[in-house]
């Protein structure tokens, strides 16, 4: 497999991989193209001219509902979920690493959170709020619903990180007289920083795009995915694609920022001469 000459197997698999990537990106690129559809164009090809008509349409509130409001709610919710996921996963990772009574049940509870279907979370939180007489809101019930999806990812990433984390670094810091807080803040935290950025990326994007868990928990104001879904039933113009293009670009921007942050951390490390 590490042979110098490329085998037939390589070319077959490379072609398969290429098709897979095409399968992933092909549909996405058609809606990016179609969002520039001319003013009289429809939902499918051919392009009837090129225009920014549908992007303008997006900001005329009466045409497509409350795009601005739902966008800012989703953004805010994503940031809240991101921050909470990073902090809670990191703390839980530290706890699991040290070990405590009940670690195994909590681990299985975390895994369960990943496999319980999202419609159940949505229904359950909706019912629990109804029974408790609380009003569901995007910043309370939907926030909690999103955390049940992002936290398991965060905890599993921290689990993987700490399983490969050599305690020698901390022990060296302790031997040099560092307190446990100093060892954590100046040794552990910088080493795991790129993983924390990754956890944050997951936290934000999973929340920003979440639909099923928000369905019954968002209360009276829609988040962006709910708004988009509502549009699929009553909007028959390419403004739908324009909205798709804009939200996809936001996702791409977030991914780009996260990767750039990780790259910057890596470069600083190389400068300091640590791997």
């Amino acid at each position, binding site marked *: 497999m590490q042979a110098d000459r490329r085998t037939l197997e390589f070319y077959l698999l490379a072609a398969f991989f290429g098709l897979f990537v095409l399968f992933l990106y092909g549909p996405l690129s058609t*809606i990016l193209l179609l969002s520039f559809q001319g003013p009289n164009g429809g939902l499918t090809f051919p392009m009837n001219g090129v225009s920014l008509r549908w992007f303008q349409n997006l900001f005329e509130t009466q045409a497509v509902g409350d795009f601005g409001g739902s966008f800012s709610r989703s953004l805010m919710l994503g940031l809240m979920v991101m921050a909470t996921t990073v902090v809670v996963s990191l703390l839980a990772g530290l706890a*699991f690493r040290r070990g405590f009574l009940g670690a195994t049940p909590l681990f299985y509870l975390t895994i369960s959170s990943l496999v*319980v279907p999202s419609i159940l979370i949505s229904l359950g939180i909706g019912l629990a709020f109804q029974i408790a007489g609380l009003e569901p809101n995007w910043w309370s019930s939907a926030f909690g619903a999103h955390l049940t999806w992002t936290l398991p990812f965060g905890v599993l990433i921290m689990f993987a990180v700490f399983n490969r984390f050599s305690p020698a670094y901390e022990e060296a810091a302790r031997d040099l007289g560092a307190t*446990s*807080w100093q060892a954590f803040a100046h040794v552990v935290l910088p080493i795991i920083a790129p993983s924390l950025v990754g956890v944050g990326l997951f936290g934000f994007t999973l929340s920003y795009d979440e639909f099923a868990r928000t369905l019954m928990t968002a209360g009276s104001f829609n988040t962006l995915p709910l708004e988009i879904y509502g549009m699929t039933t009553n909007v028959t113009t390419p403004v739908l694609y324009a909205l798709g293009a804009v939200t996809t670009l936001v996702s791409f921007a977030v991914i780009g920022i996260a990767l750039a942050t990780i790259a910057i951390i890596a470069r600083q490390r190389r400068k300091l001469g640590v791997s």
Partner: protein
Amino acid sequence: MSVAAEAAPAAVSDAPAPKRRRRAPPFAPYLQAMPLGLILGAFLLLPIAAIVIVSFWDYDSVQIYPAFVTLNYAETLGSWVTWSTLLNTLKFVAIVWAITLFVGFWVAYFLAFHVRTSKMQTLLFLVCTVPFLTSNIIRMISWVPFLGRNGLLNSALVEAGIVPAPLEFLLFSEFAVVLAMVHLYSLFMVTPIFNTLVRIDRSLIEAARDAGANGFQILWNVIIPLAKPGIAIGSIFVITLVLGDFITVRFMSGGQSASMGLMIANQISLLQYPAAAANAVALLVLVLIMMAAILRIVDIRKEL
């Protein structure tokens, strides 16, 4: 740095010399694990308890009443609609699982064994990951201009003379549901399999080759057994995602197909919460059975 320098003397004087090597007080892990426990308790355990409780409640067209009736279960388990919906859901699970496993394994295999530098591996893996961090709804909608009656694929097929008229089954059909699910969920299979494949010790493969194994024998007797944990984790993801899916089935089948998740979602929109709750309990039991079956085969905790 200055903060740490100031904090140091105080901290050192707090801890007497013989105890310096002692780790933080034993209650620290409990404090650290508490936020996770509280959040999952409040937004996972309590809601599931609420579903179980409400599944025994009574309801009419206006509201739900606290009660203890087993009518909801009797209705759902006694109806052939439930069983055929369940069968349909399991059909989706089986098909999507088989396709994502095939696609996921070979994509991961290519990345792990044929891409030579780890930089290139990371780059290509990211290329696969990026679409999964964008909106599922948008990714479903994006199939419409491609598969629709006047879509790209139909136009191309008609123009090339392969089919006389546009194919109707491409969009708003079970075919479209399976296609979209593979599109949405295959990364959940690629990632864990890729993770196990890159950690396989290459000398094992060398040893197998030296012992005279051919390519297929190496794959079947060395690589696949070692990739099992990754396959199991990927399978858990895909199976539970498809089991609980309602949005893909609703959107891509155009209302012509059914799944357990969709049945629950429809009952929710009709405000029949106790009936939805009874079905939700049934779905949860199904998910737990599937997961227990997979976990019996592989202990995933060792694999993290």
